[in-house]
């Protein structure tokens, strides 16, 4: 961190003393006004979807979409919930997301623990492999991955067709493989900030590597783990691509990918589409409102390091 010192000295040298505009109340007002307008513009698409979803199709067909009047009810929600069999797809998502997030965090924390707490010759290389892998465009891997998924034999309880293709576990695995990169990076950065002396203390106490990991380091990593869990949940939940490629059975699609398939069934009833979209967005919105802090922390952990 040598940059700040250099940076502070420079402005002093070449900045002409401009007439100082101290922040005045009118300026603040302007700023407030600007931010209010911007926020409303930003929320407008979602509010519009919400408004549309509350109106029966017949009313909007008669009155036009930009109108007030007619009925307001939750019928579109009821219809899309039942017609589109949303509960089934929500369950599919759950079956994929929960193991994916847990396993990603478990595996990533192990690697992070090993590379950050012990000295290996390949530490840096390993981190590079993980981080670069996470940044690869998904399309680069799909062809061979697709074939791998059709070729690898998977035992019965994990896969009902003996393959990874068209299986919950297949979707979970590719998420794990990709997200391991990001989580390892974040966790190893975090673990580096934990003093090494703790390891020594553990050794003195007679603890082996695994107990050091589980008993000492992991509890200390609760903040980044919570943040990452929140973030990973949102990302895996929101994934559209992998299920489109690697799932075939319409019945097994996770909710985000299923929504696209349901479009056909909705004919051209935008009100129903709006209601369906909001229902599908609901879990992430709830996570957003309840765990806002964790979410932001997760995003920023990766960038601000710790």
């Amino acid at each position: 961190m040598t940059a700040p010192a250099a940076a502070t000295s420079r402005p002093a040298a070449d900045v002409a003393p401009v007439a100082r505009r101290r922040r005045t109340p009118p300026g603040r007002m302007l700023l407030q006004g600007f931010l209010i307008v911007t926020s409303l513009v930003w929320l407008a698409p979602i509010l519009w979807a919400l408004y549309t979803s509350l109106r029966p199709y017949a009313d909007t067909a008669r009155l036009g979409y930009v109108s007030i009047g007619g009925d307001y009810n939750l019928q579109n929600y009821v219809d899309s919930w039942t017609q589109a069999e949303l509960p089934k797809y929500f369950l599919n998502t759950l079956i994929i997301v929960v193991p994916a997030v847990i396993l990603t965090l478990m595996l990533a924390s192990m690697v992070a623990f090993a590379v950050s707490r012990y000295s290996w010759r390949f530490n840096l290389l390993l981190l590079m492999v993980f981080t670069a892998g996470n940044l690869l465009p998904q399309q680069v891997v799909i062809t061979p991955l697709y074939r791998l998924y059709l070729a690898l034999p998977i035992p019965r309880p994990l896969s009902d067709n003996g393959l990874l293709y068209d299986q919950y576990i297949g979707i979970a695995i590719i998420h794990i493989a990709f997200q391991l990169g990001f989580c390892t990076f974040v966790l190893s950065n975090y673990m580096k900030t934990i003093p090494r002396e703790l390891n020594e203390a553990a050794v003195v106490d007679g603890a082996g590597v695994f107990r050091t990991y589980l008993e000492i380091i992991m509890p200390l990593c609760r903040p980044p783990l919570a943040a990452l869990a929140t973030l990973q949940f949102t990302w895996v939940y929101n994934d559209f691509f992998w299920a489109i490629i690697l799932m075939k059975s319409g019945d097994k699609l996770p909710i985000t990918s299923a929504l696209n398939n349901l479009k056909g069934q909705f004919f051209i009833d935008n009100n129903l589409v709006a209601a369906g979209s909001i229902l599908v967005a609901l879990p992430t919105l709830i996570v957003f409102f309840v765990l806002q802090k964790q979410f932001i922390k997760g995003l920023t952990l990766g960038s601000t390091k710790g």
Partner: protein
Amino acid sequence: MPALALRPRRLMARALVLGAALVLIVAGCGIGATEAPTSVTVGSNYSDEVPKAAFASMLEYCAGETDVEATINTTEHGKFQDSINAYLQATPDDVFTWFAGYRMRFFAGQGLATDISDVWANVGSNYSEAFKTASTGDDGKQYFIPMYNYPWVVIYRKSLFQDNGYEIPTTWSEFKDLAEQMQDDDLVPMAFADKDGWPAMGTFDILNMRQNGYQFHVDLMAGTEKWTDPRVADVFELWKELLPYLQTNALGRTWQEGAQSMINKEAGMYFLGTFAGEQASDPAIHDDLDFFPFPVLGNEWDAENAIDAPIDGLMLSKSPKNLAGAKKLLECVATGEAQIKFLESSPNNVAAAKDADTSGYTPFQKKMAEIIGNSGAIAQFLDRDTRPDFAGGNGMQKFLQDFLADPDQDLNAFLTGIQTFYDSL
């Protein structure tokens, strides 16, 4: 550091939590694993509401007839087609929905379908020769059981024509006159939509067959005629004559939306497969729908009067788990009774089997059968008559959209581009 003293019990607890998580994961992935051994699985692309119900009711009927319980696994129509390749190689359902023509022969040729000549030996007498040909692979064996077909025609609302005193046009000039008249009446003469890339193929096909005849269509699709042939340019010139009467913004509109504008009397006519009728969910409106064949141009092909009337049906995957059951199911589907079950719920097609009881046909269906019967030659459809990699999103879908986005572009360069692409495959 007393706080760090390790407590074995907590360690145990943590290990237990980890273990439980693993068990949950394993259990979670095993959900939905088993199915009854006597049943047959059917992969279906009937994802839209009307045909989905129709297909289910047909298989339910067959379950009663044959004791073969079908488990339907529905995939969205477009996605089903996209993933068909991997699907058939991986773990396909025993039976799957598919299309006659080149598209059927392609997968049969790749060894991804089971020969069902023995089924045909039993049910063959129930189909015309044309259906048998459409079900036969390159090796002369049958791989396909036709369920129904549907013609591509000009659909309109009877009440609209009545109220405005419109006459059914049979020639190109009558057709254009009618379109002019509709424009004067503030109607869009023809609905038009090509957001999904394939509906415009129907327009190309009909103009091509009206202009150049059925055999040219077949040869062009098979690659023996070239896209750079001046006769192909004629087709696009003809299309340009039609463009002023077509709904604008077609590339952003789905066929469902196009059909709605015809149903809502915003557009006077719509050239599409009769499945457009699925969009008329109100039976009264469905009864008000009628159609006529695309007008003839006044040339040597008038008498032939070829149309697209694609056949949909079922195929058997390469190694079905329940071969006997699947064949029994196919035999049932080849009967008129079963097909009528489908059509009862979706009267937008006509049965393929000879013994289908057509007395229950709606006027809509009777007309379909009549038009198909009056056609001298039946094509499948552009994307069913040519190789799939040429027809798809990188090929003809894109090229036709390119034409529609800029109809005034240099046709020679445009057609050379199509031929170059075909040659690169």
